């Protein structure tokens, strides 16, 4: 592929621009939730996350002091003070006295409210209201103003989500499900793959054919019978039907055909001489497997491990069926799905939770990308 097909400067430049646009489309969505998860929760709903590094503008309402605070100056009645009171000052850009026109007057100008009344509201929040007649009434004048707050980044959302929304607990649950559900199928598949590749026994060819046949079975086929089976076993022995052991075995079962298929084709390709010389030296099949085959198969084991880890960590369907949608054992994906229902508009909760659920796969993915790609290339037939 060293042959450059576009030689001119313009077409090279075009390639850079095109790739840049693709990269932007593929990264900006994820960036959006990362940035939002670090923003103040009031600012998330006040402005788009792409504006998060600029000050955010929001329209607020305040009330001037009541008539009792007025003083008489040069024959006019005057109310003075600061609209923010003791709160930290923000920048006011415009103000108004009607909710239908909250930003009618630019800050610093004197608005004529009619009836001999004027109001001036400055950018720092100080105001002067004058009237030719005395002010009356218990309640002061309502004032609307647009203020801008400086950008504010915080990790508060992470605290909230991890410790009070239950995401921390779900994170541990996900690890508890994922680690054994990755290791167990590797062990079982590796032994089976070795036997299918290098040991002689009746029915071997048939077994291989069955396993390749099972690659085509969609996961959906297994759900209802297994759910019934688990409920039956649970009520027969008086144990809960939704357990970690249950989901490990389910993930093992669904991952096994692909694991055996992938590992067998690799292990069968190992050089025959190594096995035979070990056998002549008196090594048993178990010793050959543990001391020779396992170390040599490391790359393919790593590929499958990453595959299975990502698949189990990201799975929602199996977790919802075999661990349930509520309770103590709920995993991250199911928790996130539940939050989408219960906290639909609370984007500070949703973006932060979503980022926590994707951070582990991203780390695994970036640190072990080489093995992952190798697994993809070897096993693009995975059914799941």
């Amino acid at each position, binding site marked *: 592929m060293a042959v450059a*097909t576009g030689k001119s400067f313009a077409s090279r430049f075009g390639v850079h621009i095109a790739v840049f646009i693709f990269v932007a489309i593929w990264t900006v969505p994820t960036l959006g939730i990362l940035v939002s998860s670090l923003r103040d929760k009031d600012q998330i709903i006040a402005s*788009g996350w792409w504006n998060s590094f600029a000050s955010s503008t929001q329209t607020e309402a305040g009330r001037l002091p009541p008539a009792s605070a007025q003083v008489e100056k040069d024959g006019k009645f005057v109310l003075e003070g600061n609209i923010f009171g003791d709160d930290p000052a923000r920048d006011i850009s415009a103000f108004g006295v009607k909710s239908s026109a909250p930003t009618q007057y630019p800050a610093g100008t004197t608005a004529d409210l009619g009836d001999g009344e004027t109001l001036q509201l400055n950018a720092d929040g100080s105001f002067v209201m004058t009237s030719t007649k005395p002010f009356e009434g218990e309640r002061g004048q309502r004032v609307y103003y647009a203020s801008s707050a400086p950008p504010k980044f915080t990790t508060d959302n992470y605290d909230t989500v991890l410790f009070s929304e239950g995401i921390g607990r779900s994170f541990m649950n996900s*690890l508890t499900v994922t680690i054994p559900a990755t290791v167990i199928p590797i062990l079982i598949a590796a032994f089976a793959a070795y036997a299918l590749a290098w040991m002689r026994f009746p029915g*071997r060819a048939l077994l291989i054919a069955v396993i390749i046949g099972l690659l085509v079975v969609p996961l959906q086929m297994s759900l209802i019978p297994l759910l019934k089976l688990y409920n039956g076993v649970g009520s027969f022995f008086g144990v809960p039907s939704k357990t970690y052991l249950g989901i490990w075995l*389910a993930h093992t079962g669904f991952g096994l055909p692909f694991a055996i298929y992938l590992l067998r084709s690799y292990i069968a390709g190992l050089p025959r001489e190594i096995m035979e010389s070990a056998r002549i030296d008196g090594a048993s099949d178990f010793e050959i497997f543990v001391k020779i085959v396992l170390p040599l198969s490391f790359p393919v084991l790593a590929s499958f491990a990453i595959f299975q880890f990502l698949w189990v960590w990201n799975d929602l369907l199996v977790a919802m069926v075999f661990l349930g949608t509520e309770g103590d054992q709920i995993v991250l994906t199911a928790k996130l799905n539940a939050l989408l229902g219960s906290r639909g508009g609370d984007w500070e909760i949703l973006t932060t939770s979503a980022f926590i659920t994707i951070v582990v796969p991203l780390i695994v*993915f970036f640190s072990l990308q080489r093995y992952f790609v190798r697994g993809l290339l070897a096993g693009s*037939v995975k*059914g799941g």
Partner: protein
Amino acid sequence: MAAQIFSAITVIIIGVGGCVAYFWGANKLVDIIFPSRGVAGAAAIDNLRRQGLIRPWLFVGPAMIILTIYLIYPVVETLRLSFLDRGGANFVGFTNYEWAFGDREFRSSILNNIIWLAVVPAACTFLGLIIAVLTDKIWWGTIAKSLIFLPLAISFVGASVIWKFIYEYRGAGQTQIGLLNAIIQYFGGQPQVWISLPFWNNFFLMIILIWIQTGFAMVILSSALRGIPEETLEAAVIDGANPFQIFWKIMVPQIWGTIAVVWTTITILVLKVFDIVLTMTNGQWNSQVLANLMFDWMFRGGGDFGRGATIAIIIMIAVIPIMVWNIRQANKETGGH
């Protein structure tokens, strides 16, 4: 939290340790019952032969048992259940299948699945191919590929949250915090509630899957492109072919097999798409698909296993021919391994 971490670690050790203990223990047991060392020659040979008979089954045994329980038995059982009523007690013949094809929601799911099948695999393969070709020509191509590949590591639920945030809707004239509506409003358009727009909402859900799967297509196709012999490209350049001719007439035909494998792999995935629809709309606003409909029937009103099983069978009937063809194709590519 500490107690939970401790119990998690304990559970993990028991689970993984139990598995290791089986393989190690079973082997030890065979060695003890039929010793091949430290016994007389004839007996040792006899025992070695017995070991050779037993040991393969110790190795494949766990896999066979688990595959039987988790895949073989369920296939038979699901088929049986699809001919039974909701509780699985009475035989009802083809009633469930008749119900399915008469049901409005089922037909709408089939229709939506067909639209997904027509759009997603094609879009992923096409975009993946374009990006693979373009990134091959620039010095930062590897970084670009990594970034486009990245969504493949993100769960469907996570991706749904990411895109729901992009599709977020606020009334016209208000500050839009969803990127798509903000862009529309910036150019003077009307903000829309994208995920409840009838018919078009399907496409907004498909975008999520395309966003995830394009990286997969790109990586596989990129490695196939690298396998194209240089001479064929050089010859085309010398003959004065333009970049488009080289792409369509030289490169694409040579990687046709890989394109087909990528296409069919994504097709199978699309047939089983579930998480995205569940989290984005749960099938509302005419966006239902088969896999989500099946999940729905498994639990709706206490669960109707007969109808659920029927939908599973229909998914399987759709998946199998594609899968069989795909495995054949893949075996042909890798030379029978």
